[in-house]
């Protein structure tokens, strides 16, 4: 636990030692603004909620989260620091977890900085704060899901560009499996059970459910187990490289 904390602190500080953190946060805030106000027609809708804001999070994360996760292990492998890290008296779990949590907290910090949206909508009307809190929670969980996927893929290569591209593709699959474009393709011929199964793999399905203000245990379990599984895969990838 203490060692997870040590890894976590080092990693999180590492983000703010480089311009990466600031660039990421600025771009994240800029894009959420554009999506919400221009593409999401925040004002024209005339409704006091943050739906246009949250609706675009999956698509934003699809590109921005792999940009965070791509360096998690690949950079370490490239610089050789991984040799140092893996020969310290740390369990592999505490390393994997410490790194993941630091990246997650970093994304949460960026997300927290969108609070002016919440203030704006509260100023303009009477939004349902419960729904907004639930949506933030859903967004955090979804970001964790994207990050866990990206972390695992980053562990498999020392090339950050490759890590980024593959992560985006895998994250895309996990996103669109719930989008109409995919579901319509199955809907024509597949049984409903298969349709549901495909949709249930999607971040969109679960995120939309939470966004409606209902935090269903199944959605929580989905995200938590997805994160757990990908982190376990991450650990296996690191462990396998020891003997290759």
């Amino acid at each position, binding site marked *: 636990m*203490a*060692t997870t*904390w*040590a*890894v976590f*602190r*080092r990693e999180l*500080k*590492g983000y703010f*030692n*480089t311009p990466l953190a600031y660039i990421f946060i600025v771009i994240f805030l800029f894009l959420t603004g554009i999506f919400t106000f221009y593409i999401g027609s925040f004002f024209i809708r005339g409704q006091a909620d943050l739906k246009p804001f949250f609706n675009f999070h999956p698509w934003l994360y699809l590109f921005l989260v792999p940009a965070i996760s791509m360096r998690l292990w690949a950079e370490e492998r490239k*610089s*050789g*620091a*991984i*040799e*140092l890290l*893996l*020969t*310290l*008296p*740390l*369990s592999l779990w505490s390393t994997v977890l410490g790194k993941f949590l630091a990246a997650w907290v970093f994304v949460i910090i960026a997300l927290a900085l969108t609070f002016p949206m919440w203030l704006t909508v509260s100023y303009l009307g009477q939004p349902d704060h419960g729904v907004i809190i639930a949506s933030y929670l859903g967004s955090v969980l979804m970001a964790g899901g994207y990050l866990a996927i990206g972390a695992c893929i980053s562990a498999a290569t020392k090339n950050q560009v490759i890590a980024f591209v593959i992560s985006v593709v895998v994250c895309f699959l996990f996103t669109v499996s719930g989008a109409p474009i995919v579901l319509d393709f199955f809907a024509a011929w597949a049984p409903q059970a298969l349709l549901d199964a495909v949709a249930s793999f999607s971040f969109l399905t679960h995120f939309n459910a939470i966004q409606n203000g209902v935090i269903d245990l199944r959605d929580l379990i989905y995200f938590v187990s997805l994160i757990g599984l990908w982190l376990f895969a991450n650990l296996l990838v690191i462990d396998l490289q*020891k*003997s*290759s």
Partner: protein
Amino acid sequence: MDWMIEVEGLVKTFGHLTAVDGVSFNVPKGEVLGFLGPNGAGKSTTMKMITGFMAPTAGTVRVAGHDVDQQPIAAKAQIGYLPEGAPAYPDMTPLSFLNFIADVRGLDSATRRRRLDYVIANVHLEAVLEQSIDTLSKGFKRRVGLAQAILHDPPVLILDEPTDGLDPNQKHEVRGLISDMAAEKAIIISTHILEEVDAVCSRAMIIAEGRIVADGTPEELEQQSPFHNAVLIDSRDEGLAEALEAMETVSLVEELQGGRFRAYPTAGQTIVAEIAELIRQQGWSTSRLSVEPPRLDEVFRNFTKTKAGSGGKPGAKNDAKNNAGEAA
């Protein structure tokens, strides 16, 4: 004897390539073992397996009694490791980096302060503590890596080329540091620099193509040199070569350029006194009479240029050492 490092039948293959091919040795406390060998001989790979970074294809490693594969955390806690190239986190400062290592190593605050002071003073990092590591010179980076390795005062130190990239003064200092710690620790260093072996190692091992081809004290290895105890004579006198060849203890006389001769002794003999006597008796004028200085590099070259060079004396010596280890 209490072995701090026990390596048994270590093998590592990468696909078709065998990087380490059945390496066994033990290191007790107080010994500084030098790994010598050409690039790609398997020195670093052996170190990576001892420190638990790589899993061996076959064989076992025990560090301070802990099997590195079975109890990795207990074993790693006993090791200080400077990996090849001294990697660190480039955007950290040496101070924050060392604090991170102290966190992970679980040093309490009093120990941490004491060890940080010791390490920073002895590795001479005072001037760069607050500078980010990627702006440091190669020598400073190496010293940060060394500081990190000895921070927790480990009983076992594995240093992969600790003086690479340092200038002669820094090399001297690092060697002094290693020698100071030697009595209390079991240390393995790898190096290309043969004088370093003489300077700090109490035992040297030549590794070639993944095998140990020679193992002994630096002096023992020097005796394997074809030039061991050979005598150089500069003389213009007639009949010198013939007279030397006639001596029973001389196996061969080689004529070099410019009236210089090199006389090789038969095994185990010292011939310089006899030759001096001969010269005096004959009243020859010699401008030079000297014993060849010890040359580890000749030994090194001999052992590493012959491809499968495991035969002969050094192999026997190696076996004897290992048997002694098992009996203990």
